[in-house]
Every structure is written in C-alpha cells, then in structure tokens.
C-alpha cells in the first residue's frame, strides 16, 4: 500500500507526475530539470519519454534509452515508452506466456487493434507507468508526456477502456490503475506553456479538460521562457529619456559609437515582454487554485545539460515550496 499523504504535498513528493503542454514550449526540458532536482535530493527517479523522440536524453547529454530503463546518473533512470514492448512485458507478467514464439503475430495484431481502438495503446502506456508505481522500484516517475492533444485520452484511458472492454482481465486491472492515477497524493499533472496566445489557451483548455474528463489531479501550471523584466519603473523612465535625439547624441559621443542600435535592441525586448505579459496574467487569473510557476527565458546557456541545470536552479530558487513539502 502506498503511504497516505496530505494534499499539500509537493509535486516531487508524489509517485507519478505527468508533464505535458503544446509542442515547442519546452516540456522535455522542464521534465529533465525536475528529474535532476529529484535525483539530487536522493529520490530514485525514473524519467519516461512517451513520445520517444529522445529529447530528454539529448537534454541530459546522454544516449537515448530503450524500453528497459538505464541509469544515467546517480538516482536517475531514463526509459522510452514503446507500446509493443509494454504489451510483451504485460503478457509475460500476467499470462506467463512462453514468450516470443506465440507473441509474434499476437503482438502485431495488438498493434493493429491498438491503432483501431486508441484506448488500447493508451492503456498500455498508462498501465506500464502504473505498474512501475506499484512495483515501487522508484520513488518518483516523471513522464515527458505526449502533447496536449493526446494526454487527456491517455489519462482517461482506464475509464474509456472500461466502456469499450466490458469483460476480461484488462477490465479488472483498470481498477488498480485508477486507484493510482486518480489519487492526488500519488499522481499529478503539470501543464507547461509559453507566454503566447495559443500555448496559454491550450494550457487553460487542457486544465479544464483534465478537471472535467479525468479524475487526475492538476498539480501546477508552468509558464516557461518568460522574458525577465528589463527595468524598474524609474529605470524605464530614464531609458525613455535616453531615446530623445539630443540625449542619444550625447551618449553617442560618450561611448564613441552608435548607441541607437543598442537602444533599439532594448526596445525590442521591452516590446516582447509587453506582448507576452497579458497572457501570463490571463493564465494566473484563470488558474483558480492551481499554482502557477514562472520560469525565465534562459539566455546564453544554449541547450543540453546547461539549460537543464539553469532551469532546475530557477525551479528550486523560486518554486521550492511547490516542489517539496518542507
């Protein structure tokens, strides 16, 4: 039995955390950063890539992993979801079938059926994740989940399966999966967005759908790549005055160069921030009780482990109380 936990538990105190969001918002880097934090805190952490594009492996500067989890650094394991192998494992564990020989055509057929009835493919993904929670080999499983379009059907798949499959072993097993998925002390979803119209709208829509169509707990909304504030108010006033032609001329002389291009650059940055601000505000005001965390746009760190480190530092510096109970 999983130990019972209070509602105020931090995200990383849970056993199964899905990270989702529209393509391009950086959910893989957020997942990797959370994984790094959890593993450093001594949690045995498994990151599962559902889309299997290898983004998390690239970010953590390591080789992509297969279905079999590989330990990539202390306390941190990585695996790629593969429904065919999940099915093989399932059959091996639950039916004790003498493997491969009989499974060849069967697995193929299942793949085919799974294509026809999406519930099957999705239950295999969710089933494997819940199985790992049940086995308790890891303290925390972080899922770099599919993007927004797909995640609801994944999270709702046990329900969907009970509607489609009215009998059989799968039906029985759906029950314990639901116990794990729909227990907010164990399972949570994080939705990642960037401060632009479509990602924010999709995040809010998804948050609503998770609430209505599934019983999975929404743990947090994360806005990634938020432009930092350039100036305080008095600084911005001063900056505006600098753009007066007379002032710029003086400054040109002082620095012996064309300050105009630099000022144009700051203006562009100010514009970008101004453009993004209403979306962040909209998300905050529509989020209700769900906590919203902001992560800054990371300059000059490129990608890979440097980016993951920078994000994990930002997460623990600003959002520590969201991640851990203490």
């Amino acid at each position: 039995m999983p130990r019972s936990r209070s509602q105020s538990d931090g995200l990383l105190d849970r056993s199964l955390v899905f990270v989702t969001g529209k393509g391009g918002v950086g959910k893989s880097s957020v997942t990797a950063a959370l994984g790094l934090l959890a593993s450093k805190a001594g949690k045995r952490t498994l990151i599962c890539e559902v889309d299997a594009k290898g983004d998390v492996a690239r970010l953590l500067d390591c080789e992509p992993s297969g279905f079999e989890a590989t330990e990539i650094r202390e306390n941190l394991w990585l695996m790629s979801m593969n429904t065919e192998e999940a099915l093989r494992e399932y059959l091996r564990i639950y039916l004790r079938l003498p493997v491969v020989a009989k499974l060849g055509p069967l697995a193929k057929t299942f793949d085919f059926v799974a294509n026809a009835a999406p519930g099957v493919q999705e239950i295999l993904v969710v089933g494997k994740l819940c199985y790992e929670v049940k086995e308790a080999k890891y303290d925390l499983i972080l899922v770099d989940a599919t993007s927004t379009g797909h995640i609801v059907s994944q999270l709702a798949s046990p329900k969907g399966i009970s509607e489609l499959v009215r009998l059989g072993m799968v039906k029985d097993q759906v029950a314990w999966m639901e116990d794990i998925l729909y227990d907010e002390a164990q399972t949570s979803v994080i939705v990642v967005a960037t401060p632009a119209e479509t990602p924010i709208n999709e995040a809010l829509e998804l948050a609503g759908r998770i609430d209505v169509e599934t019983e999975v707990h929404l743990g947090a909304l994360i806005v990634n790549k938020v432009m930092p504030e350039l100036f305080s108010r008095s600084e911005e006033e001063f900056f505006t005055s600098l753009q007066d032609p007379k002032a710029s001329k003086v400054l040109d002389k002082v620095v012996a160069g064309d300050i105009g291009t630099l000022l144009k650059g700051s203006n562009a940055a100010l514009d970008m921030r101004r453009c993004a601000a209403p979306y962040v505000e909209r998300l905050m005001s529509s989020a209700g009780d769900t906590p919203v965390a902001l992560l800054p746009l990371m300059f000059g760190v490129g990608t890979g482990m440097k980016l993951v480190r920078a994000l994990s530092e930002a997460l623990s510096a600003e959002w520590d109380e969201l991640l851990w109970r203490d």
Partner: protein
Amino acid sequence: MAGLEALIDESKIIIVAGPGGVGKTTVAAALGLAAADLSAKKVLVITVDPAKRLADSLGLVGLSSKGSRVSSAELDKAVGHKVEGKLYVAMLDAKSSWDELVNRHAPDAVTRQKILSNPIYKNISSRFVQSHDYIAMETLYELYRSEQYDLIVVDTPPSRHAIDFLDAPSKMADFFSSRLLKWLTIPARNRLLMGMFRPFYQVADKILGAQFLSDVAEFFLLFESMYAGFVERAKSVAGILENSSTSFVVVASPESVPMTEAEYFVSALEARHLSLGQMVVNRALPAYFRDPAAILLAHKLQDAYEKFAKEFLQKGSSLQFIKESEYSQARLEALAERVLLEVADSFLNFSGVSIDEADEIAKLPIDEELVTLVPHLNFDVSDLISLGKVAGYLASGAEAPTM
C-alpha cells in the same frame, strides 16, 4: 519570399507543414491572404486548430469544413488597397468529415447506421489523432476535385512528426488492406477456420474480453463492404500530393529542435520527389542584433558602464530630463549605471540568440532563395490587419525588419 508570386501562380494546392508551436497556422492564413492579394484567384485556407482570436477575426465560427468568405472590404482594409482575389476560410472537422466519408462509401443505409454507431468507429473518428492526418487529406481531395477554388492552402494538423501527414493516405490504405484485418474478422466469418487460430483468440479473449473483439470484428466486417472504394480513394488522395501543381511550404522557428525536424521533413519531400515551394523561418530576431559594431559597443559598455554613466551625466547636464530631475546626483548616477548595463546585457543576450539562429539558418541544406524569414513580431497576429503585415513579410522577405 522571392518566388511567392510564382508559387501562387503555379500552385493549385499549397500544403503548409512543420513542427508544432512555430506559427504554422498563422503562416498558412497569411499565405492565403497574400495569394488573394497578389493574384485574382479564389483562395481557400483550411486550418485545423487556429488560435481563437484569429479564428474569430477570420469569421470562423464553429467547426465547418465548408469555406466561408472573408468580406472583401475587410481584406482591402488588411492590406491597405483593393484586393483582386477572394479569400475563403474553413476549419477541419474530423468527426463529421469521417461521417461524410462513411455516408459516401457505405453500400446501404443499414451498414451506414451500423458503422456510425460502432464503438470502435466512434473512437477512430473522434479521438484517433493519426486519423486527423488522413481526414485532412481526404477533405483536401474533395475540395480540390470540386474545383470550387483556384488555390487551396492547407494548414496541416499537429502530429508527432510533420512527416506523418505525407504518409497518412498510404498508411490508411495499408491499414484497411492488411492481412491482419482478415484475421480479426475470422471468428465472425468462419467457425471452421477459427480452430486454427484458437490459441490466439483464447489469449485475446482473456485479455480484452469477447465483446471488445466482436466489436472490432464487426467494425472491420462492416468496413470491408466499403473497403475497395476506400483503398482506391486513399490512393487517389495520395496522388494529389504528387501533382505538379501541389507545393509544400515548410515552416519552422529558428531554434535547433524545430529546425532539425523541418530539415527532416524537407529531406523526406526530396526522397518522395515532391517539391519544396518555400521554407519559412518564423520569429527570427532582427539582423541588427548580429551587427559586429553594435556587439563591440555593448561589450565596451558592459565593461565601463560606471565610467560612461558618470560622463553622460556630466556632458548631458544641460539635457532637460537631467536638469529637471528630482533625484539626487548619486541616485541619478546609480540609475544611469543600471540602465546602461541593462541595455548592454540585454543586447548581448539577444545577440547570442540571434547568432545561434543565424547558424541554424545557415546550416539549412536549402537554396537560399527558398528561405524566407518572418521576424519576431511585436504584436499578436490576432486580426486581419496584423495578418496582412505577416503576408507583407512573406511577400518581401525580412532581412532587417523594424521592431
């Protein structure tokens, strides 16, 4: 876009593809607008999932695969002069497009009704993401054949890989012609043959339950009656990709992940002998961020901002905002220091990003003429006016946009 006019002239279909989150829908809509402006064509833009405000401004209310016209007065206003062409917009409705397909191919009313109410079918048509790729192609084919439009611009659905869209028709044909399909329908068809497959069905029954399997079997049996028409259809749909009047516009943003995916798509087009009409790199930072003199100056400023702040306040003491400032000299100096340092820091931050972007763009194995940059815009593309501006960038290219 150097060859935009030629592209619009020569194409009957433009397929806009690329990874998610790069502004594909905006580019598709702007391309449609540019086409209506640069030619006298009757243009249709089919979008899949437009941002709400853009959909509203285009007059897209609710789902409809039928085109609705954007008023010409609105169009004229958007581009600032009289527009010759006509612009229509439509939004893909996967569920009802599937139903239409069934209506068209079902041999009789009973079969049709059975298919429409089969749980497996319901699942496929509404939730099966890959099926969106196919149905988008199918809708495109139907509209193309109707010859109602001179040019159709298609915004492709967000899928795991942009390439899925190209393979959707052949995958769909494979899907329905697979031998496995026959396997699954055996129990319903032939009790005798069933014996041979008993071990398989025992396992499958045990896992999934007999009801589910019979739903699956029923679905495929029903579909079999439409099978020939369906496979034929999927092949014709695949055929329109190969028309010489079909062009592809690939959209990416200048970061390494989307660019890699876009490149992969471009090479997949090549492998299939399909023609890349244009590659649009969206949200590129302006070129002045890479100006060496400006970068040098920013470094200089970063190193000696205190000195420059002091000198500026001395030499600029007669400037009105300094003369009349209510702040003390020390406070003013601190303010000037922070502002100058921030200006330098932020410029160098963006320079770094911009240089990375330029590297990504330079790495593209594509003829320079085929690459169009659309700048990072300081406004949201949420109405026709702003869409008109994007259309302008598409038409002229944007090496050094003003921001």
